[in-house]
């Protein structure tokens, strides 16, 4: 058992920090305030990610044939930890390197890999994830968007909601149904967003520009080779993809950075001697450290090649708790810093915190999974 970093890992972390110090502009905090789906941050990512790629820091964990260097999972995770703490200068592209790319590598055709992986590895691809629907949020298997085979094509009709980054995405990782109800009959399509029949509506939201949208599919025709994997067999692929999505983000690292800033602010106001404030700051820090260790355990399992386990749901629950403790700490003791643009990190952290337990598998779904898969409690009797 060893909770320290190797020299190589420490050196890697330094390389990422050096690159960030070089490449992030002075107004980066204000820029990143708008959220990864904003036009400003998307434009920035298309400039920044190629530099990451050039430094070998975008997809080092991918195999050599796809532009990576076959680095171990820890390698990629350390990079992600530093970048997320910095406000995620990869913008929406973090999704590509965390799970969309790997899903295509594992389940896609050679043609799909040739088409989609090189732009990702070059830091030039913006994707969105067409999962949720008005009547299928956490209950993904209830999705209704239909794909109908017509000759060499599929014709897609339906709509998606809460879709992050859809406004500027080039491609959609889309779930649609060819079969009947439930988990059977669901397909994944890789759909260029400029296909006729797709319309996107930005939804005004609390959580940053360009972060949530409705996407409508009206007689959208895609060729049969847009299908990822076999028709109707997507459910296990979705599970695989989500298990990679959900531990990819080192939220606690951003929370730590923001908490450090909040404490500095309180110190500068002479308020950090208040024993209540100190206790709450220490409490938030403990939650961050617990989350960090529980996430590391999952990465450690992945690094050993173990299959995804419910430990990931334990970790996610701890991460959400830490996010909220830090956000609540700021709201309680520094409410006025949410009133100006002098502390853009407080605002962007809060937005990510409130979304953390709702987007990408609600906190309550995590609790179900911890109960049933980690504690092995009996599954609920269903009506």
């Amino acid at each position, binding site marked *: 058992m060893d909770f320290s970093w190797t020299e190589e890992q420490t050196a890697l972390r330094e390389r990422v920090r050096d690159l960030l110090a070089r490449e992030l502009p002075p107004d980066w905090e204000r820029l990143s305030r708008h959220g990864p789906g904003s036009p400003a941050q998307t434009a920035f990512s298309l400039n920044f990610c190629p530099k990451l790629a050039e430094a070998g820091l975008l997809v080092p964990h991918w195999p050599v044939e796809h532009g990576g260097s076959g680095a171990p999972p820890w390698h990629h995770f350390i990079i992600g930890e530093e970048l997320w703490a910095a406000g995620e200068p990869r913008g929406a592209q973090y999704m590509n390197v965390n799970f969309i790319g790997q899903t295509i590598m594992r389940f896609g055709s050679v043609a799909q890999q040739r088409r989609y992986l090189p732009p990702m590895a070059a830091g030039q691809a913006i994707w969105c994830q067409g999962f949720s629907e008005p*009547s299928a949020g*956490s209950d993904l298997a209830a999705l209704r968007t239909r794909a109908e085979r017509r000759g060499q094509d599929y014709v897609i009709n339906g709509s998606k909601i809460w879709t992050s980054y859809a406004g500027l995405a080039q491609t959609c990782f889309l779930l649609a149904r060819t079969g009947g109800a439930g988990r059977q009959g669901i397909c994944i399509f890789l759909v260029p967003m400029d296909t006729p029949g797709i319309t996107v509506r930005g939804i005004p939201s*609390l959580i940053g520009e360009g972060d949530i949208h409705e996407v409508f599919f009206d007689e959208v025709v895609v060729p049969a080779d847009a299908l990822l994997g076999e028709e109707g067999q997507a459910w296990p692929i979705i599970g695989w993809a989500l298990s990679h999505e959900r531990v990819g983000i080192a939220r606690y690292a951003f929370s730590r950075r923001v908490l450090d800033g909040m404490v500095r602010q309180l110190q500068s106001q002479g308020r950090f001697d208040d024993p209540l404030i100190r206790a709450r700051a220490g409490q938030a820090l403990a939650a961050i450290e617990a989350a960090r260790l529980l996430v590391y355990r999952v990465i450690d399992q992945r690094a050993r090649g173990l299959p995804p386990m419910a430990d990931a749901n334990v970790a996610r629950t701890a991460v959400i708790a830490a996010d909220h403790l830090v956000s609540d700490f700021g*709201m309680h003791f520094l409410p006025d810093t949410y009133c*100006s643009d002098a502390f853009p990190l407080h605002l962007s952290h809060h937005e990510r915190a*409130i*979304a953390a337990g709702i987007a990408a598998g609600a906190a309550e779904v995590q609790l179900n999974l911890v109960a049933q898969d980690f504690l092995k409690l009996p599954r609920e009797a269903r*009506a």
Partner: protein
Amino acid sequence: MNFELNDDQRALLDAVEQVVQHHLARTPAPARVECVPELDRDLEQGGYFEAVTTEGLGPVAAAAMVIALARLPFCTELGASALLAPRLGLPRVCAVLGEDRHTPARFLAQAACAVAIEADGVFAAALAPGDAREVESLWAYPMGELVAPEALPWRRLDADPKACLDLWRVALAAEIAGCLSAALTSVVQHVSDRRQFGRPLGSLQAVQHRLAHSAVAVEGVRWLALAAAAGSVPAALALGQAQQAVRPVAYDLHQFMGAMGLTLEHPLHRWTYRARRLQSELGAADRQFQLAAGQAWPA
């Protein structure tokens, strides 16, 4: 002990309820804050803000009115108007300043006067256009700050700062009670309608239990605010309990509203971000609890 409104109080609250229902018919805009001049006009013309100084009504009726009006998703200054300004002879809109005269305060850019309740006295200053400016914020209130507080014509009011602070605590507790209550109602409605996994979300036991906890918290806050208005419970205790309720209740309500609650299209955020702002006024819950402990158990 009598938990029913008297006839005068009932008549006032019935009239207030009509105003609430009238404005509830309006569709909220997708914005963090929405002030509706017609609501202010209705309330001012109806003379509702005289309740606190009216025989047979008084602070309990005024607090009940704040609770009822805070249920609206539209923003109007309630607490100072209903409990403080009439007692101090100040015009509406009256903005109550925070820790010091420089920090942002609710409604300051719209206010006719500013009040500072400080340890050594209560001070007021009339505001002219340009004396305060609007500040952007996360909070679902119009926030403002004074441009040059030291240049304003402050005058000391003939009022006890401690009594004013207690009235202000009642006002804040009542507004939190109204905000959380409206937010809870909207989420109960949502989870009763919304189906997930083949049944209404609100039939799931975990959802039910957490909403039940919210209901218990909100009921406690509501009655503490009313009893504090009557002087039967320390105001600091009522405000502390109210401020403490905000975090867990707002968390659960947003969880159950799901992504819909992250949009500006559903008004949930208006109530929760008002409550979240109020939770830190006068130093947040633990400050109230410390104060109440000092009163309950003097050395």
